[in-house]
């Protein structure tokens, strides 16, 4: 089933309107200065975040909006903008909870960091590479890439259903900068059409 059909199918099952504008949607949420934590919850706290730190104001999509998640991305920044391994490269798992249902459960993320070369999919060319040299820490020289996992199964976020992305570890270090979580995929956004 294609992502377009799946979204229509799920929206139809839920009785949600499916006449919105089709588009590509990227949702993101930032946690500032997380430090060492065992659990990071994204899309849960929007207080004090600007439009540069999240593009939602609540943990749910609007009444006429829905989307299919195809890709999860995590990026950990130092305060100067240098990219670091998320959680210091320690073993961590990610879960996506939609409503009261876990739709991605304890999916390990560390293999797609690029340092060990065992990314899940073939999108990551040659499994990752790194440099042996010490680098200066200047953010203009990016030697690490964001962590990205492409899902094999389309996950739908229906309209007006709360969702959350939870990252769990054994007290991994997330630094003094910020960690950003982005969910990308196909979606529908509100389109008034001729109804106004």
């Amino acid at each position, binding site marked *: 089933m294609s992502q377009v059909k799946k979204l229509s199918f799920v929206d139809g099952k839920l009785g949600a309107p499916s006449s919105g504008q089709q588009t590509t949607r990227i949702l993101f949420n930032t946690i500032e200065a997380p430090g060492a934590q065992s659990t990071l919850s994204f899309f849960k706290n929007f207080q004090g975040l600007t439009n540069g730190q999240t593009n939602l104001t609540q943990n749910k999509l609007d009444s006429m909006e829905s989307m299919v998640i195809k890709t999860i991305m995590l990026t950990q920044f130092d305060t100067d903008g240098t990219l670091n391994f998320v959680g210091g490269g320690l073993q961590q798992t990610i879960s996506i909870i939609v409503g009261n249902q876990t739709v991605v459960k304890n999916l390990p993320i560390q293999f797609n960091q690029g340092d060990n070369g065992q990314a899940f999919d073939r999108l990551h060319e040659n*499994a990752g590479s790194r440099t*042996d040299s010490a680098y200066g820490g200047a953010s203009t*020289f990016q030697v690490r890439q964001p962590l990205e996992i492409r899902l094999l199964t389309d996950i739908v976020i229906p309209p007006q259903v709360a969702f959350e992305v939870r990252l769990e570890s054994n007290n991994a270090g997330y630094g003094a900068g910020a960690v950003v979580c982005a969910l990308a995929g196909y979606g529908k956004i509100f389109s008034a059409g001729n109804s106004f």
Partner: protein
Amino acid sequence: MITAQDKILHVASKLGLSSLQNMQGSTGAVYDVDTDLSGQIFSSATRHQNPSVTNLTDNQFEVNEALLVETIAFYVLSEADATQNFQSVYGSNAVIVFDLVIGNKRVMKDTPIFASGTPYSFANVAQTRANIAPENTPTVFLPRHQVFMEGAGILIPPQVQWYVDYRIFNVITGAPIAATDATAIGCYLFGTKVLLNFNTSI
């Protein structure tokens, strides 16, 4: 072509798992590390810390959970719990030979994973890299140590134990290589997952 979902439902039907089709489809991976240096992975997951060593509480799935294994990969877990590349730690002449056992059946047999890059390495990408200061040494490539099970994923059904048996050899001399506590071998199985979904049943 049969899709991952089709294969899961076909196997579930053969096993009489009639309710699996109503569960939540997802993407999943399970991983564990042979910290005992026993040559077997996943069978002692119960005793391992979660999630720094494994994301399992047992080497079997609960009721109505399953995983269609589409990729198998090996790595090394450092004593600091960081995942490392097998070749970077063991050198290019090491090779892992492994079996995947589900229930009492061996479903992958004597499969080699070459440290220098296996089939499915997707090597030779014609990539050149400029040396830009302050990085004045060339970037090194890290080979994949994976098997992509193209079009032939293998289903681990609910409530059936599985494990991976492996040995490490020097591919040039044929001599076995022993892992150590600092170079313990880990493995993950990745693919389409089925998660328990109660729907309206409770």
